[in-house]
Every structure is written in structure tokens, then in C-alpha cells.
């Protein structure tokens, strides 16, 4: 695609409706990201029902804005009250909160905002330049490749935590089991319906997602009886604007962290915390005063902010090209794509080019909202964090139930969200990773279909996977990731055996 065509798409999305929904998405995302206990996942899950009546392009723009802004919103509470709104903002507390204690809370917000803008922009531009050519690679994939690519997305997420790997596997199994309920896409016959007509087609995606992410959060907040931690007015003093000289002093860390964030974002499963961790470590090692890191170092704060927001653009690369969501939020984003009748891959960049390039423009515009909301929204943060949980919980509960009702206009779907809310609550409490479940549930039907197509073409021979180089390589990568958590242990055993043999 040439630049003129891209600019043309940019001009096309500049309608009143699109801009209105971009603003709504940005504001809602910032608020939900800033509320401790809420997250980008909850925000997206709650927001998807609102987009039912919208054009796919408008829906994508607002969902993109939520994704970007919720990732940024968590920075605010991390800096001002030492409570990351999302787990992704954990590193932000290291230097952000010490700055607040020093009476530089607003300056910290300013640094974080500018760096998040730079990171977000670099991530989005990388998405724009990498995703379309990569999608052309995806078109060469046959059923085996598609099956193994989808499996790879799930395997990476399952293998993320060695200690919870077994629980992650069980979580993925549960997701696969749920995905198999309903009409078999190949033969058209119903499976595992158990006489429930409402799931004859499938277990509906949106109520499951709303239940797992939003209702479970409502139940967790009720159980924890958590008090609202309001921002102290004294933390919001001074100026949020930073000088050009200060900005230039941070340019190396900002650009480096943005590149790291983008690359880490592209790798499925690596996530924001990894990007922030690597960038922070590098910034600390290259700084002339590493001892000041963790005590309110501005470079440290800038690095983490840039890396965090660069991940958003990066994470959309494997999602839009291969349909592999790298984290929970992008898994929900994938759900949003499916609900609006869009599927990842080459067709998204050809047949649905208007929508996907509209999304890219939406992400670019959303970065500017980071600047506007970040630099001018300080008085609002204080009010947002003062909303008490005993008001917030019933409101979210009510929106969830309404979202389920308006999905297919069936009370059954509202019962589904409560059911999956209970499941999500138990999963959270039992420290079972929830993302493998969601990924397996979203990708399950497609994964099975590709496996069956592959077997059909190869006349049922499983061994055919070894006959072609690409499926073989993908299988090896799958196995590599599956065994990766145990490499350390294996190395230890080998070293121990060598030592014993040497005696």
C-alpha cells in the first residue's frame, strides 16, 4: 500500500461518529486503567457490547483506543498512590511513586505521559510497517501450518510460568472443552449440547469473556472488601509539563525502550512486564548513577513508560497477521474482531483494508489522547480514584448483565456470564492462569478445523507433518516452548551427573 492510499484511509475515518467513539474509548480506557482492580482486559470486555450497533471500523477504532488508553491509565495510580491500576504498570511504581513522595507527582505524570506517547507511536508505526508484509507470508500457510501456529499461541502462554504450567495446561483444556460445545464447523452436526438449545450453535464468546474478566472481578472485589485508595490532593501539585531539554535528555532511553517494547510485544506471550523489565535493566546498567534507580530516577520512569506502551502496537502484529494473541488483552481484542465478523490474516489487509487501516489510524490518534488526557486530566484522576468500590461494583455488575442481555436478547446469556464469573473467580483465587482458557476457547474451533483439514488432505496420516519443512519447523518451535521452562532443571541434572561421573 502506498502512502497516499494510507492517508486516504486516514481522511476517511475522520467522521463525527468515529471521532466520538474514539474519544469515548479513550476516556473509558483511561478511567478503567486508572482504577485499581480494573484493567485493560475488564475495560475491553465491558466495552465490546457497546460496540454491537456500530460499524466494524468504528468499533475497532474505539476498542483500539481502549486498549491503548487502559495500558496507559494504569501508570497514573502506580505513580500517585503506589498501586498499579494494571499489573503491567508494576515497574512504574519503582521510580514514579518515590517522585510523588518527593512532591513531584505531576512531573512524574508528565514524564510518563510523554514517554508513553513516544513508545505508543513507535509501536504503532512498527505495526503499520511489519504487519501487512507479514500477512502475505500467512497466506502461504496450509492447514498444518495454521494448526501449528494456533497451537503455538496457546503453548507459549501455557509455558510462560513453569510453576503454574500444569494449571495452565488444565486451563487450556477447559477452554478447548468449552470451544467444542455446539455445532461442528466441518460436518454441521451438534456436539456436547446436552439438550440445551441455546448452545446448539456454540457457547457464546462475549458472555464467556464478560463473565471471566468482568463478573469475576466484581466477585473478587466483593470478597476482598477492598477499600478505595484515593489520591491525596497534595500529590497533584506543580507542573505536568517538562522542558524540551529534559525531554532530549531522555531520548536515548525512550527510543531504546520503545524498540524493545515493540519487539517484545511481537513475541507472543512475552508481554509488558518482560519489556519493562529488560528496558529498565538496560537503562540502569547504562546510567552514570544506577544507585538512584528505584528512588525516583526520571530515566527509569521514562524507560518503563515507553516500553509499556510500545508493547500494544507490537502485540497486534501476530494478532492481526496470524491470529495469535500475545496476551489477555489482545485475546479479548481478537474476540472483538470475530464478533464484528473480521478474521485475522491476509483478508484483513485486502478485503477489509478499510477497517484495519482505520484501526491503525485510530491507534495513532489514541496516542495523542495519551498526551491530552495525561497532561490535562490531572484534576480528574483525583476524582476518579475517589469513586468508592461499593458504587463501582454494582454499576459494573449491572453493565455486565445488560451487555449479556443485548448480545442475543436471551436471558440465558446473562446466566452464562454469572456461571463463567464464578469459574473466573475460582480460577483467580486458585492461582490458575486464565489466559490459556480464553485463548483455547477463542482459537479452539479454528484449531480443530485446521487439524481436520490437514488430516483430510493427507488422508488421515499424522506423519505427514514431518514431510514438509515449515510444519516441521513449527512443530519443533512448539516443542521448544513447551519444554523451555525445564531447560534450567535439565542443565542442572546434566551438570550434576557429569560431576558424579568425574569423581
Amino acid at each position: 500500500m502506498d502512502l497516499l492510499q494510507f492517508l486516504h484511509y486516514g481522511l476517511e475515518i475522520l467522521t463525527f461518529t468515529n471521532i466520538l467513539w474514539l474519544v469515548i474509548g479513550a476516556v473509558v480506557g483511561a478511567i478503567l486503567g486508572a482504577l485499581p482492580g480494573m484493567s485493560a482486559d475488564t475495560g475491553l470486555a465491558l466495552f465490546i457490547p457497546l460496540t454491537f450497533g456500530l460499524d466494524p471500523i468504528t468499533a475497532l477504532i474505539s476498542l483500539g483506543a481502549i486498549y491503548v488508553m487502559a495500558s496507559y491509565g494504569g501508570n497514573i495510580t502506580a505513580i500517585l498512590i503506589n498501586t498499579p491500576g494494571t499489573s503491567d504498570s508494576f515497574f512504574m511504581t519503582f521510580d514514579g511513586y518515590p517522585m510523588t513522595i518527593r512532591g513531584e507527582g505531576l512531573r512524574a505524570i508528565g514524564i510518563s505521559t510523554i514517554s508513553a506517547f513516544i513508545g505508543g507511536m513507535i509501536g504503532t508505526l512498527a505495526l503499520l510497517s511489519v504487519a501487512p508484509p507479514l500477512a502475505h507470508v500467512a497466506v502461504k500457510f496450509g492447514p498444518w501450518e495454521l494448526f501449528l501456529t494456533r497451537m503455538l499461541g496457546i503453548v507459549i502462554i501455557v509455558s510462560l510460568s513453569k510453576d503454574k504450567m500444569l494449571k495452565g495446561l488444565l486451563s487450556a483444556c477447559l477452554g478447548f472443552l468449552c470451544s467444542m460445545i455446539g455445532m461442528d464447523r466441518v460436518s454441521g452436526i451438534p456436539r456436547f449440547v446436552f439438550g440445551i438449545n441455546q448452545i446448539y450453535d456454540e457457547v457464546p464468546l462475549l458472555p464467556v469473556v464478560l463473565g471471566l474478566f468482568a463478573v469475576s472481578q466484581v466477585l473478587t472485589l466483593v470478597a476482598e472488601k477492598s477499600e478505595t485508595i484515593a489520591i491525596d490532593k497534595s500529590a497533584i501539585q506543580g507542573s505536568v509539563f517538562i522542558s524540551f531539554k529534559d525531554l532530549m535528555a531522555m531520548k536515548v532511553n525512550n527510543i531504546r525502550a520503545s524498540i524493545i517494547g515493540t519487539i517484545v510485544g511481537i513475541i507472543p506471550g512475552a508481554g509488558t512486564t518482560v519489556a519493562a523489565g529488560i528496558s529498565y535493566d538496560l537503562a540502569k546498567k547504562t546510567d552514570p548513577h544506577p544507585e538512584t534507580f528505584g528512588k525516583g530516577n526520571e530515566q527509569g520512569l521514562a524507560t518503563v513508560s515507553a516500553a509499556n506502551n510500545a508493547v500494544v502496537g507490537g502485540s497486534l502484529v501476530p494478532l492481526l497477521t496470524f491470529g495469535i494473541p500475545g496476551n489477555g488483552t489482545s485475546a479479548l481484542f481478537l474476540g472483538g474482531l470475530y464478533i464484528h465478523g473480521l478474521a485475522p490474516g491476509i483478508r484483513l489487509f485486502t478485503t477489509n483494508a478499510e477497517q484495519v487501516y482505520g484501526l491503525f489510524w485510530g491507534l495513532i490518534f489514541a496516542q495523542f489522547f495519551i498526551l491530552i488526557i495525561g497532561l490535562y486530566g490531572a484534576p480528574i484522576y483525583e476524582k476518579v480514584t475517589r469513586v468508592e468500590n461499593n458504587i463501582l461494583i454494582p454499576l459494573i455488575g449491572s453493565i455486565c448483565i445488560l451487555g449479556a442481555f443485548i448480545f442475543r436478547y436471551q436471558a440465558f446469556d446473562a446466566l452464562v456470564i454469572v456461571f463463567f464469573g464464578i469459574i473466573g473467580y475460582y480460577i483467580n483465587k486458585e492461582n490458575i492462569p486464565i489466559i490459556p482458557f480464553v485463548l483455547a476457547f477463542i482459537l479452539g474451533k479454528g484449531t480443530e478445523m485446521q487439524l481436520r483439514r490437514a488430516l483430510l488432505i493427507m488422508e488421515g496420516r499424522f506423519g505427514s507433518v514431518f514431510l514438509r519443512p515449515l510444519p516441521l519447523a513449527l512443530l519443533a518451535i512448539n516443542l521448544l516452548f513447551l519444554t523451555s521452562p525445564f531447560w534450567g532443571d535439565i542443565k542442572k541434572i546434566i551438570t550434576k551427573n557429569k560431576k558424579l561421573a568425574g569423581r
Partner: protein
Amino acid sequence: MDDKSTKKIFNYNYISVIFMYILGFIFLFATPSIKIAEARLFPYIISILTIASATLLLLKTYYHWGKKEDPVDFSGTLSALLMVVLLLVYIGAIATIGFYLATPFFLYISMWMLGQKNIKLIFAVSLLTPLAVYLFFDLLLKLQIPQGFFFS
């Protein structure tokens, strides 16, 4: 020795294992009834994998393999269950009397139950939320809000 220190903490992994066994076996036994042979392959793979993973978790928990897990805290679950009951009643109420009538009651009761003391605030939120939903969902987005038997 203190009784509390010697008291064995229940490991909730056993509940997860039982739940996954039940699900795994239900799917495994239901699979042969699928009429088309090809449509049985994936369910067989997944249900067997589920049972195998659950068995591994059972063994891991029983023999304390690997790193010790963080203790699981289910305190407050009773309050969460109360909220579940409230949500179920709310769903029933929406299906019968509609969203606009059911919501003020749900919001009022749940806010009060969760400890909100400011009655004026409770009233304001309970009444303004359905109004906001009407303006945003009904008028702006043209989405169909459940009306219940009074208005349909």
C-alpha cells in the same frame, strides 16, 4: 504445641482435579455418540489430555512435587456468593419486569449491602443509571434494552 500451627491447610488443587475429572469423563463418554467419526478425534484428544493433566496435578499435589505453591485465600467467598444470588435475582427481574424497573432496586440493594451509607448517593446512582442507559444505549446506540412484560 499450638493446634493452629499443626492444622493442615486444605489444598484446593483437589477441588480443581475433581472438577476437571468430572468434565473430562463427561466429554470422553459423550464423544462416542457423535455420529461422524472425524468429529470425534479432537474431543478424544482433548478429553484424554484433560484427564491426564488432572492426574498429573493430583500426583503433584499429593506428593508435593516442585516449588511450594502460595496459599489460597478464599475468605470473603460468602459475600461473593451473596452477590451471585443478587445477580441471579436481578437477571430474573430484568426478564420479567425489564431493565429500567429492575436496575434501581438492584443498585440500591447491592450498594447498601456493600456498605454504602450515603442514602442520597444511593438514590441518585440508582435512578440516574437507568436514565444514562436509556440515553446512551436506547437513544444513541439504538440497542434494544429488555423491557419486561410491562412495556413489551
